[in-house]
């Protein structure tokens, strides 16, 4: 008995340590991932440090900087707001109403995400620009003036059309996992659907909306292509110009300012999310009944149709037109598209998605289940990478990898790492919100049935959050497929993808040749989107 006792005591202490060390391991892993993801910032520190302090202050306080900052803030704000105004109603229409052809509209509402926004912007300029197809069409009708597509309105419109799906998807996910009984409770307390929505549904899906809004805001902040095509002067353009002038130190200092804006956005989103206190867990699995649209059926359908037309049909139509229309610089020489490019795109995007999902899990878990404010810090910080412009990330990784891990330079590993740094937050966000919705007592139940935490997690939590993880992976996949600047800079020699090819022929003005890969890109990405929505559907009903 004596030895038995000693054994037991040993076991007990071990048990206690394992418990504590398990959470320490988790935190350790999360911190390591965060550091890795933030490592490119080290380069920004180095380069910014090379700039003379006085010059730096001058630069940061210059009239232009201030104006461009204001421009950027206005753009980020307006795109985020407009995206919410488009994405949230679409999500509600497709999840909670008797909208005709709901599944169809669900797909069309999500698909604009697969259109690279620079292609979308191009399509817009060709359609609505002063010499665009629309004015060509309208000219015989005596319309010779169409509203300006350039500048803030144009940039806002285009960015909204191609980023609102973030909000659409996250809101949708929140609505799908939302406990319908409490809506019933509100209605039995004499609240109309709309009142119940305002007082019960909205507060609970707000974190979901904010999560999508965060992605939209950070994307807008870091996007260069669209504002530049739409001739709206934003921060990324300033940074781009500095790079063009080969003044890396200037670009680095300006990048810090950009990151500061990203941090502000993150802080705002955190505040919204802080209100979640217990608001998230979904107990009942009852779905709230359908909202009958009645006379609103037609306007609602028109709304869905309008968004789909602008965000999806238009770019595709323009691409098709590039394809069939010869002349005017739309066709020309250059190398033909090869299937291998598509394969390259698919494999790196799939790898990036897989790695992101795995890496996102500990961060998301810590943020969702951790009990201190600090535990959500890794999650927050990981978003910073999302706001770093691709060029900055590319150059940082060129330097850092050659300096410290030269053997990964010019390999797909570095490329995939860059993608993970940029896009993992998308996976973190969706994973976290689905984790938050899992009632912790499920894990308790599993553990009291003898499963250690990791197994309990795998057998109970993982199946429940699988749709969220899959959605996160798909978002990473889609955005990776579209990513250009870091791809150009970090791909191995001779490694061409959809976008590098499109970039090459398009920059040379050979739009006709860009059309095929662009269409294939849209179709392939669209298929992966269908996969997400398919899974979600299975799980939701």
């Amino acid at each position, binding site marked *: 008995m004596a030895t038995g006792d000693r054994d037991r005591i040993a076991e007990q202490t071990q048990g206690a340590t394992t418990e504590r060390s398990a959470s320490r391991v988790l935190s350790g892993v999360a911190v390591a991932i965060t550091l890795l993801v933030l490592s490119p910032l080290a380069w920004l520190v180095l380069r910014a440090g090379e700039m003379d302090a006085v010059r730096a202050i001058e630069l940061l306080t210059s009239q232009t900087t201030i104006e461009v900052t204001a421009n950027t803030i206005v753009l980020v704000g307006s795109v985020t707001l407009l995206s919410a105004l488009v994405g949230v109603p679409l999500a509600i229409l497709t999840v909670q109403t008797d909208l005709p052809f709901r599944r169809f509209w669900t797909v069309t509402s999500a698909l604009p995400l697969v259109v690279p926004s620079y292609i979308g912007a191009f399509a817009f300029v060709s359609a609505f620009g002063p010499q665009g197809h629309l004015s060509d069409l309208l000219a015989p009708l005596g319309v010779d003036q169409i509203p300006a597509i350039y500048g803030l309105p144009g940039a806002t419109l285009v960015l909204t059309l191609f980023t609102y799906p973030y909000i659409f998807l996250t809101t949708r996910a929140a609505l799908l996992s939302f406990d319908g009984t409490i809506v019933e409770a*509100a209605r039995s*307390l004499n609240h*109309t659907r709309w009142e119940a929505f305002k007082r019960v549904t909205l507060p609970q899906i707000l974190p979901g909306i904010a999560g999508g809004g965060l992605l939209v805001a950070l994307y807008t902040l870091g996007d260069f292509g669209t504002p530049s095509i739409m001739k709206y002067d934003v921060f990324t353009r300033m940074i781009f110009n500095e790079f063009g002038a080969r003044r890396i130190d200037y670009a680095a200092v300006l990048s810090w300012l950009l990151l500061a804006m990203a941090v502000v956005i993150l802080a705002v989103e955190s505040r919204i999310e802080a209100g979640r206190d217990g608001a998230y867990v979904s107990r009942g699995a009852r779905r709230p009944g359908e909202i009958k649209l009645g006379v609103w059926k037609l306007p609602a359908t028109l709304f869905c149709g309008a968004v789909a037309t602008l965000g999806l049909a238009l770019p595709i139509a323009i691409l098709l037109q590039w394809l069939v229309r010869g002349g005017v610089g739309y066709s020309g020489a250059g190398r033909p598209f090869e299937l291998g490019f598509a394969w390259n795109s698919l494999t790196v995007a799939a790898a990036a998605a897989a790695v992101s999902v795995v890496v996102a899990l500990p961060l998301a878990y810590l943020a969702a289940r951790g009990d201190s404010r600090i535990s959500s810090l890794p999650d927050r910080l990981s978003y910073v990478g999302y706001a770093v412009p691709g060029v900055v990330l590319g150059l940082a990784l060129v330097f850092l990898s050659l300096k410290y891990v030269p053997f990964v330079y010019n390999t797909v590993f570095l490329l995939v790492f860059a993608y993970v740094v940029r896009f993992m937050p998308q996976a973190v966000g969706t994973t976290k919100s689905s984790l938050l919705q899992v009632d912790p007592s499920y894990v308790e139940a599993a553990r009291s049935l003898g499963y250690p935490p990791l197994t309990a997690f795998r057998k109970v939590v993982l199946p429940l959050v699988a749709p969220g993880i899959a959605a996160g992976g798909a978002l990473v996949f889609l955005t990776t497929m579209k990513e250009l600047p870091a791809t150009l800079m970090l791909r191995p020699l001779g490694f061409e993808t959809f976008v590098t090819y499109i970039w090459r022929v398009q920059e040379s003005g050979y739009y006709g040749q860009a059309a095929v890969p662009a269409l294939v890109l849209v179709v392939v990405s669209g298929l992966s989107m269908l996969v997400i929505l398919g899974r979600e559907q299975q799980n939701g009903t």
Partner: protein
Amino acid sequence: MEPDIDTRNTTAAFDSVESAVDDPSATVVELDGITREYGAETAVDDLSLSVNDGELLTLLGPSGCGKTTTLRMIAGLERPSGGSIQIEERAVADGSTFRKPEERNVGIVFQDYALFPHLNVAENIAFGLRDADSREADERVTELLELVDLTDHREKMPSKLSGGQQQRVALARSLAPEPDVLLLDEPFSNLDVRLRVEMREEVRKILKRAGVTAISVTHDQEEALSISDRVAIMNDGTIEQVGDPAEVFENPESRFVASFLGQASFLSARVAGDDIETGMGTFRTARLNGPVEAYNGATVDVLVRPDDLRAIPTAESTADGYVTQRQYNGPSFVYRVTLHSGDVVHCLHNHSESFEPGEPVEIDLTADHPLAWYPTE
């Protein structure tokens, strides 16, 4: 000293007089042949029921028999597959009409509470009050918090409450706006006896004072019998019997109802003219609650409840059977006795008496009311 008759805090027979009801015979809720199918399964099957103004009707029935589904249809949270529902003489659901839940003025306490997780206790309770921010609302919340004994928990979030506390918040929330019709789905299931008794009396008082018509689901027989104006026994999606508690208890129309209320035993008895012969002796048919001539020579099952019987210690030779189980109920013991005839009956005894298991006993029929009986199946 004059008797201080607290007539409001009293039950059925006493208080129908002063309830705030215009016309107690008016039908407020009328279910006509409602049916609800889930795929191949029929949860509620051609159920009809009417509930009068200001009445408190209790649904009793086995788990899964369709009680919650019925309430949900009345509240408008579920659409009947067939049949119609009228509330205050307006059709709220039939083939063509479907009134939305918020237009029915029907409150509901959910079996699983369905508290708003993002609102604290006070906010949950105030939710249904039109002008939730006003002083008036505040007072009402305070009043209801007192009623459900949660004054100290006013600011807590629901996730930090114990099960019973959550249930009480749900109850207070549904009472706050004083709906015309209140549906209570096992509203006291997680409360301890003392609180349950207290609360159900308070709730009854409130309902009566406001003239609210209520349908309550409970699995607690005592609760059903003691606070209801009428009880309805449900089985398998349909109502087997509805009536005054005492009437249903004493004259169950079917074996199911009989076996569902109280601890029922069935004694097989052979009818022989004016006598019936049973495993515990021969009795006059007059003790049964209806003419049994038609069954002369055949056997019938007579319903005997523990309080109808008494076991008397006796010698092996004169015994009707043996005690096979003893169950302690606090104020009393219930003994299970297996008769030589094979029937099993239960006898209620004051806690001062005591038998040992295996002890031979004789059984006395002490019932002073006519006994219900059913043709042997």
